[in-house]
């Protein structure tokens, strides 16, 4: 997990994002334990209070839960809810980009073209995913 000290996003949210991504990617499966506070704090060289705050945030969202004396676990639908938040955050990034593009005077057509071009430079991993029509090389 890479933490960026130059970002305006507090470390605890960066850590929460990192864990959410790991759950979405299946690094930790529903029902499986997450690293202890101590283990994660030492792994990412960060104050355990900050890690605690990240875990609190994820518990509040229902992505993880704590079992008294046993530690923290990924919730039953944790993977789905993590993917749903990834989708939300993607939507937000798109929105920001579109607003900026509109402010710079780009048309919907130009924005769509730029989006398709960006999509095609990043390789798709999932089956059933194919490059957009009209841009096939």
């Amino acid at each position, binding site marked *: 997990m890479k933490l960026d000290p130059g970002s305006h996003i507090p470390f*605890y949210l960066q850590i929460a994002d990192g864990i959410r991504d790991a759950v979405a990617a299946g690094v930790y499966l529903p029902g499986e334990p997450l690293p202890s506070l*101590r283990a994660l704090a030492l792994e990412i060289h*960060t104050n355990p*209070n900050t890690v605690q705050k990240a875990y609190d945030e994820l518990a509040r969202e229902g992505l993880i839960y704590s079992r008294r004396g046993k530690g923290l676990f990924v919730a039953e639908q944790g993977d789905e809810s993590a993917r749903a938040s990834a989708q939300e955050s993607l939507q937000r990034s798109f929105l920001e980009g579109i607003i900026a593009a509109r402010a710079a005077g780009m048309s919907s057509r130009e924005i769509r073209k730029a989006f398709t071009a960006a999509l095609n430079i990043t390789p798709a991993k999932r089956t059933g995913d194919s490059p957009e029509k009209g841009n096939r090389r």
Partner: protein
Amino acid sequence: MSLLPQSNGTGPAIELDGVFKLFGNSPAVDGLSLSVEHGSTFGLIGPNGAGKSTTIKMLMGLLAPTSGSVRVLGHDAGTEATQIRQKVGYVPELHLMDRWMRVKEVVGFCRSAFSTWNDDTCREMLDRYELPDDKKVKQLSKGMLVKLSLVLAISHEPEMLILDEPMSGLDPLAREEFLDGVLQTVCDKGQTVLLSTHSLGDIQRMADTVGFLYGGRLLAHSNIDDLLASTKRVRATLTNGSPPENLPTGVVWQQVEGREWLLTVADFTPETVQKIGDLQGVENVDVIDIGLEDLFKDFVKGQRSNS
């Protein structure tokens, strides 16, 4: 849902109230009030000469304040410095160890000063940092000296750690090893920590709350997450190239270049944008998110241009 060891202390772990320290006529610390909660890590940051070391020396009872009260773990730093030194692990900026002593002799010397000395902790840390017992202090590299200083500071199982710019001049690996040593003891024992440093990156890794010290005063003292959320930079266009007379409250710094107006605002709310946009001759107000480093620089630059 706290999984960390909790301190049983009541009241703040560190409390300064209206503290002044004059050297001759000039104040090194200028009416400083500050409190640090038990079990939290407080990061103190400021340019050279801001008063960080003077403040720390007053906490340790090594300097007496000209006026005001300094309390550490419930003890008055003026009259109960002995109790404070028993309960605090202190890593000073300059390591005043006898250069001709061997590592094991320095350890033995410190051991004799504390009834709470834990040999196991000490041995474990010396091994972890690969500090050779028989080496003389003068033969140690800067990194090893700082690590030895940390071992000595935590082996008497203190309730608090006070670290005065411990990492300045260390290479990146030694820095990380030093910080990991601090983190490990904090994870295990839940000590209160005061860390003074020049690195905002270290502050974000280590601290919950941060204090910006400048000219012996605190420009900001806040939980880091709150500070990041409540301080924003605003960019706007000035139609006639000069900023309006009446600035909204909370402006810590501003700069005009041609028609571009940049300002950093503390206690930022959505209404702030509205208020700035309503000012005479101001257009296209845009909010820019900034990180802790830029935020700190803006506070200091703003203060400099005011004085």
